[in-house]
C-alpha cells in the first residue's frame, strides 16, 4: 500500500468512527432539551427523571465524540498537508468558525448543565441545555459547509493556479450545503430518536417504570416518523443536486455505464464493479433512476463511460470513475435501511395510537435492535458521498493523491493507524459498555430540591 492508500484508510477509519457519536450527540441533546422543557412547563417528576436518565447517556456519548473530534481537527494538516496548503484559506475558515462559534458554546454550556443543577435557576438551567443543542447544530453547519465546498467548490477565484476565497456567502448558500446539512440534521434526529426508542423499549420489556418510559417512547416515535420521512425526501433532492455537479457519483451509484433516457433503478445486481460493465440486474424499476437523479419521469442520466472520456478531455489523462461497487451498494444500504426504519416507526406510531405500545413484546424487541439501523444508514450515506467524490479531494480542483503529506512516510502512517485502531477500539468498547449499563439502569429518583442531605448533584464525575 502506498502512503495515499494508508492515509485514506486512516481518514475513513477515524471519520466513520467519529460519525457514530456525532449524530447521537446532536439528536440526544435536542431530545434531552425537549424533555427538560416538558419538565420546566409541567413540573412533573417523570420528565425530570427522564431528562436525567437520557442526559447521562448524552454525556457518556459526548465525551468520546469530543475526543475523536480532536483527531478530525488535526488530521488535515497531519496527513493532507498539500491539500491544507492549497485550500486552507477557504476550507480552514469554516473550521475556525466552528471552534469559535460552536465548540466553545457546546462544551462550556455542557459543563454548566452537568454541574449546574443546584447552582442555576430552573430557567437558566433549561437555557444551558438548549445552548448545548444549539452548539451541536451549529458545529454541524460549519463542518458541512466545509465538506460541501469539497463536493462543489464555490465562492473562489483561481490566482496563480490556487483557489482564493472571494465570497463567503457563496460557501454558505451552496446548494450542496443547504440540502446536505438539512439531511445531516434530520439523520441525527433519526439516530437520537432511534436510540431513545430502543432504550425505552428495553426498559418497557424489562418492567422499568412503564408510565415513564411510555412517555419517552412516544416522544421518540413522534420525532422519528417525520424525521426519517424528511431525511428520505431531502436525500432525494440532494441526489438531484449531486447529479448536476458530480454526475460520476450518481451514475456510479446505479452502475450506469452507458447514457440512458429514461433510466431504471435496479433493486439488486449480481457482479458489477469497475471491471464488469454488464452486471446482471435484478428487478429493475422503470423510470425510478430518472426520477431520483433528475426529478423528471423521463430524465437523462449520462453514463460512466461517456463521462470518463469527457473528463479526460477536460482534465487530462487519468481514471475519473469512483469505486462503483461501493457506490452501488452504499446507495442501496442507505435507501433500504431508511425504508425499514420508516416502516418500524410507523408501526410503532400505530401501536401507540391503539395504546398497545408498552405491551407489544414483539414491537419492543424489534425497536431495541432497530437502534443499529441509523448507524448503518449514516455510514452508508457518508461512503456514498465521500467515495463518490473520488478521485478528487476537491471536485475538479485537486486529486486526492496530490493532497497527501509528502513528508509523512508509510511507516509513520502505519504507526498512527495502529495506535488509532487500538485506541478507538478500546474507547468504543468502553463507551458501548457504559451506554448499555446506563440504559439498563433504573430511573434516577426525582430531585428533591429541598433535600438538605443531598448536596451532590446526581450527575457528577
Amino acid at each position: 500500500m502506498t502512503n495515499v492508500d494508508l492515509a485514506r484508510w486512516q481518514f475513513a477509519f477515524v471519520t466513520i468512527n467519529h460519525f457514530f457519536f456525532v449524530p447521537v450527540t446532536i439528536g440526544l441533546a435536542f431530545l434531552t432539551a425537549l424533555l427538560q422543557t416538558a419538565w420546566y412547563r409541567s413540573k412533573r417528576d417523570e420528565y425530570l427523571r427522564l431528562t436525567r436518565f437520557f442526559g447521562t447517556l448524552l454525556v457518556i456519548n459526548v465525551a468520546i465524540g469530543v475526543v475523536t473530534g480532536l483527531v478530525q481537527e488535526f488530521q488535515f494538516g497531519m496527513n493532507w498537508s498539500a491539500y491544507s496548503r492549497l485550500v486552507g484559506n477557504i476550507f480552514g475558515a469554516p473550521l475556525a468558525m466552528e471552534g469559535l462559534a460552536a465548540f466553545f458554546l457546546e462544551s462550556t454550556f455542557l459543563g454548566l448543565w452537568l454541574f449546574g443543577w443546584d447552582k442555576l435557576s430552573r430557567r437558566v438551567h433549561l437555557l444551558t441545555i438548549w445552548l448545548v443543542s444549539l452548539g451541536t447544530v451549529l458545529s454541524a453547519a460549519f463542518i458541512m459547509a466545509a465538506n460541501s465546498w469539497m463536493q462543489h467548490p464555490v465562492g473562489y477565484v483561481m490566482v496563480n493556479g490556487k483557489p482564493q476565497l472571494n465570497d463567503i456567502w457563496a460557501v454558505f448558500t451552496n446548494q450542496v450545503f443547504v440540502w446536505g446539512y438539512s439531511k445531516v440534521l434530520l439523520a441525527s434526529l433519526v439516530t437520537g430518536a432511534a436510540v431513545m426508542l430502543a432504550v425505552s423499549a428495553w426498559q418497557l420489556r424489562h418492567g422499568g417504570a412503564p408510565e415513564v418510559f411510555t412517555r419517552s417512547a412516544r416522544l421518540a416515535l413522534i420525532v422519528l416518523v417525520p424525521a426519517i420521512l424528511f431525511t428520505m425526501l431531502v436525500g432525494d433532492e440532494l441526489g438531484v443536486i449531486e447529479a448536476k455537479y458530480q454526475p460520476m457519483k450518481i451514475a456510479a451509484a446505479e452502475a450506469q455505464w452507458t447514457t440512458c433516457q429514461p433510466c431504471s433503478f435496479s433493486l439488486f445486481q449480481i457482479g458489477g464493479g469497475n471491471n464488469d460493465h454488464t452486471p446482471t440486474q435484478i428487478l429493475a424499476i422503470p423510470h425510478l433512476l430518472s426520477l431520483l437523479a433528475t426529478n423528471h419521469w423521463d430524465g437523462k442520466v449520462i453514463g460512466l463511460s461517456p463521462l470518463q472520456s469527457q473528463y479526460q478531455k477536460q482534465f487530462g489523462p487519468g481514471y475519473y470513475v469512483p469505486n462503483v461497487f461501493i457506490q452501488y451498494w452504499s446507495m442501496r444500504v442507505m435507501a433500504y435501511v431508511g425504508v425499514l426504519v420508516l416502516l418500524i416507526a410507523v408501526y410503532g406510531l400505530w401501536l401507540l395510537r391503539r395504546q398497545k405500545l408498552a405491551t407489544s413484546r414483539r414491537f419492543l424487541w424489534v425497536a431495541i435492535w432497530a437502534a443499529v439501523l441509523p448507524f448503518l444508514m449514516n455510514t452508508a450515506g457518508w461512503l456514498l458521498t465521500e467515495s463518490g467524490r473520488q478521485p478528487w479531494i476537491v471536485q475538479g480542483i485537486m486529486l486526492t493523491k496530490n493532497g497527501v503529506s509528502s513528508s509523512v512516510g508509510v511507516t509513520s502512517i502505519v504507526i498512527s493507524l495502529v495506535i488509532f485502531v487500538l485506541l478507538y477500539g478500546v474507547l468504543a468498547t468502553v463507551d458501548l459498555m457504559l451506554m448499555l449499563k446506563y440504559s439498563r439502569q433504573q430511573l434516577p429518583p426525582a430531585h428533591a430540591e429541598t433535600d438538605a442531605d443531598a448536596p451532590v448533584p446526581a450527575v457528577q464525575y
Partner: protein
Amino acid sequence: MRLVPFWFIVITVLWTGFFILEGFDFGVGMLHGVVGRDDAGRRAAINTIGPLWDGNEVWLIVAGAAIFAAFPGWYATMFSGFYLALVLLLASLMVRGVSFEYRGKRNALRWRRTWDGLLTAGSLLAPLLIGVALGDLLTGLPINSHQEYTGSFWNLLQPYGLFTGITFVLICLLSGATFLGLKTTDDLRERAGRLARRVAPVTGAAVVAFVIWTHVTARSTFFLNPVELLAILAVIAAVWLVYDHREGFAFAATTVTMAACVVSIFTGLYPNVMVSSTNSAYNLTVHNTASGAYSLKVMTVVVVIFLPFVLAYQTWTYYVFRRRVSRREFLPLTGRHAAPSAPTATPDGAAPPAGQGL
C-alpha cells in the same frame, strides 16, 4: 496587509488562552492522585475542574483551526512535520478526556485507579509535547525550499524544545497546585499548599533559565524584552506568594508567568512562524504562509464578534463554579451523615480564580 500581523496576535492570544486555562487543569490532572489520598479526595480534586476542562480544551482546537484558516502554510508544515508527536498528543488528550467522564461511571476500585493513572499520564504528556513543539518552532527544524519538513521524529527532540516542554509542565504543576489550594478545603487544601511550596522553587529556576535560553535562541537584542522581564518578575512573585500562603495571588502570578512564557516564544518568533535550520531563507514567515486578504477579513469579523462572547460566558462559568469543593461531598451517604454538618462551601476565598479571561 495589516491583517497578517493582527492574525499572528490572535493566534498568540489563543495559544496563551489555552495554556493559562488548560494549564491549571493539566496540573490538577497530574496532582489529583497526590492531593486526594482516597477516592473521595480524588473526586473532589477532579470536580474542581469538572465543569471547566472541556471548555478550556476547546482553546487548543481553536488555536489549531485559526492557524489553518489564517496561515495554511504554517498549519500544513507544522502538523505534518510533527506527525508522530501529534499522534502521541492526540492519544494523551483522548485518554485524558474520557477518564474524566468514565472513571466515576463504575464503582470498582481497579476501574477507577486505571482511569486515575491514565488521567495523570495524559495530563503530564500533553503539555510536555505541546511545549516541545512550540520550542521547536523557535529553535528551528530541517525545512526545505518547498516549506516541507525533511527531518524525522528524532529531529524534534532538541535541547531547547525539550526544556520548553519541561518548563511548561512545571508551570502547569504550580498552576494546578495553587488552583487546588484555592478551590478545595481542609486536608486537600493543606496538601495542595505543601505541594505548591515544593514545586515553586523548581518552577522558578526553570522559568528563569527558560527565559534566558529563549532570549538567546531568538537572537534578539542584548536586553530582555518586556515580556521576558515580566515572566521573570511574575515567577519570582509567584514563589514568594506561595510561601506567604496567599493562594489567590499566587495563582494569579503563576497565570501571568504562564502567559508571559507563551508570549515570549511568539515574540521571539515574529515575523517567522517556523525557523528552518537548513537555510534561513527557507524560514516560514507570517507573510509566506498567510491566507488571502479576503479570508483574513472574513475571519477577523468572526473573531471580533465571537471571541468577546466566549470570554463573557466562560468568565460567567468560572463565577458560577466559584465555591470550594470539599472531600466530604463525595463520601458515601453514611459517612456524610457521620461527619459534622459543616457547610460544604466556605464563603471566604470564594472569589473566582484570577485570570480566567485572559
